[in-house]
């Protein structure tokens, strides 16, 4: 899951980014409004976190710009203002949720999970395919009765695959949603991580879940 954070207070942006990365999200951070809008328009993010008071372009303008471009990515606004009208304006302009500063990190994370869940129509909460289960709230992955320990990136990759079960996911799609903008697309990092995942999930099971689609990418499905 790749998230764009547009926040001009460097320190605030930094700790949000760290918190999210520790939850295995891929995070891009931007401190400028206009630049943030451009990034939101050109990259297919899974979620936007937008501060309302920004230099060069306000959070409200970013919201409007994104929605005008018919991008339905969930947007969470951060605001230092406790005034109701600011939040109302934000929600009316197309935000999906808001948080007032200062906020608790746990709440931020819970709201992000809720927003990401909203995108997929099926079962909220636990993602399941065959006997493989992934719980985004606890970040617990099990196959059958056996717990599987994953690194942050492995987890992020698996979550992305599981949210798009039965669809072919190309390498550019995977890199766009699992890695941030610092990722170098010309390496074979994706293949390496898919192999790690295979080792942890499919090894020892007769039923393989991760499949290579030759020439295009990967797919998670039950045979």
């Amino acid at each position: 899951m790749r998230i764009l954070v547009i926040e001009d207070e460097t320190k605030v942006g930094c700790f949000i980014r760290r918190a999210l990365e520790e939850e295995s999200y891929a995070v891009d951070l931007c401190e400028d409004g206009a630049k943030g809008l451009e990034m939101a328009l050109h990259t297919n993010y899974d979620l936007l976190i937008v501060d309302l008071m920004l230099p060069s372009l306000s959070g409200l303008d970013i919201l409007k710009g994104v929605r005008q471009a018919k991008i339905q990515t969930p947007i969470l606004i951060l605001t230092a203002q406790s005034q109701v009208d600011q939040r109302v304006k934000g929600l009316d302009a197309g935000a999906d949720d808001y948080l007032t500063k200062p906020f608790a990190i746990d709440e931020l994370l819970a709201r992000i999970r809720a927003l990401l869940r909203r995108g997929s129509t099926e079962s909220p909460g636990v993602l399941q395919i065959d006997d493989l289960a992934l719980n985004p709230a606890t970040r617990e992955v099990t196959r059958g009765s056996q717990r599987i320990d994953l690194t942050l990136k492995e987890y992020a990759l698996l979550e992305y695959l599981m949210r798009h079960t039965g669809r072919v996911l190309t390498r550019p799609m995977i890199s766009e949603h699992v890695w941030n903008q610092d990722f170098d697309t010309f390496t074979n990092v994706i293949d390496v991580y898919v192999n790690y995942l295979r080792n942890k999930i499919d090894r020892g099971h007769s039923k393989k879940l991760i499949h290579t689609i030759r020439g295009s990418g990967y797919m998670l499905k039950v045979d």
Partner: protein
Amino acid sequence: MPLRVRLTLWYGTALALILIIFSTILYLVTARSLRDAVDESLEETAAAAVRSLEERGFLPLIDEDELMSQFPELARIDKFFQIFSPSGTITIRSPNVKQQEMPLSRQALEVAYSGRSLLEFAKYPKEPALRLISVPIIYRGNLLYIIQVGTSMDSVEETLNRLLLVLLVSMPIALAVSLAGGWFMAGRALRPVDTITLAAQRIAGGDLTQRLTVPASADEIGRLTNTFNAMIDRLETSFRQIRQFSSDASHELRTPLTVMKGETELALRRPRETDDYKVVLESNLEEIDRMTRIVDELLFLSRADMGEVKMERLPVPLDTLIEDLHRQASLLGQERNIQVVLRATTPAVVLGDELRLRELFLNLLDNAVKYSRPSGAVDIALMIDQTHARVSVTDHGIGIAQEDQTRIFDRFYRTDEARAHTKKGTGLGLAICAWIAESHRGRIEVQSKVGEGSTFTVMLPLAPAPAAAKRPPISSSPSSHRER
């Protein structure tokens, strides 16, 4: 009681009084002149009768028929007459006298003996009042007869009664009509007041965007409306400023809180290296310092707003102060390799509070260093003209766009360039500077070009000559100066 009712009542009472006085006078004057007219015609008739008798040599007249033939003119008059003998008995009377006896009154007889005429009223039951004139006819010192001419007051009284009736009926009608008119006029005159009241109620309800429509006339109501609108304008502006201010203040205070809460929570989520905790604590300390600065500055400004900041008015030698500040600013500049140069100085004394002036210049120097590029230069100059001392602080840093140059003195206002340049800053410094300059009857001017640098010039009125003459020695430490 509503103003409209009161106005109408006042008006009605005044009008009623005027009407009553006017009617009474009219009635009395009319009554008087009608009676005078009656008396006059009685006198004329009596005089005519006397003349006729004289012409005929005062013949004793026997009966009425003879009398009428002798005096045909008597038959034509609307009056009656009687002739009495000197003893007061009736000798003769005109035929139009009713059957009743109408003896000569005692008073008339007495007056007749003294040779004068008498006008009197006579009243008989069931008859209208009569007006009588008794004229003695004296021939060679002897009273021959008394001629009495009378007429009924009937028509006079009838006229007066009719007049009274007209007055009594028309007065209430006139009063009622004009009361209604007064009510209407008062309503019309007061309608703008009602409009103002309604608008004021809406405004009191919190809608400060409301304005009254100004009437075309420049009357009292027009002036009231204009004054009212001007007042709401000012209210709206200051409300907007207060709202802006408190929202800015809340934003500025929430940001460090957000950082501290977020970083601390994040650190506590899982076990970490000692160095990680140290980084968080150091960062939190920075935020605490920042909050302390904001709170101090806000406190100062709000106390200044309430007029609670004490200002000394002592002679302050600016040259010494500037030299001292120059040393301090040089230290500030060293961190960023910025040269602070004292370009010009001259003896100058102003009346004021040294601590505050120090704060003012230090803020400007701090800004100049802060918004300079690394290894830039900052110049200080102190000059005087006839009336003012001018302290200018020049830097070659990021500069300020023309449209921002007035707004930088607003509380919390920081330009986007300044925000991008450094996170250190509250946006309150220049607001405090402006306040200090103003309370010294001075002002601050800005000249700046984006990317080239800025010059802030403080102008302070010089102390009058005697104060300048006895320059007190000033120590570089402000506290010892304070204790004197």
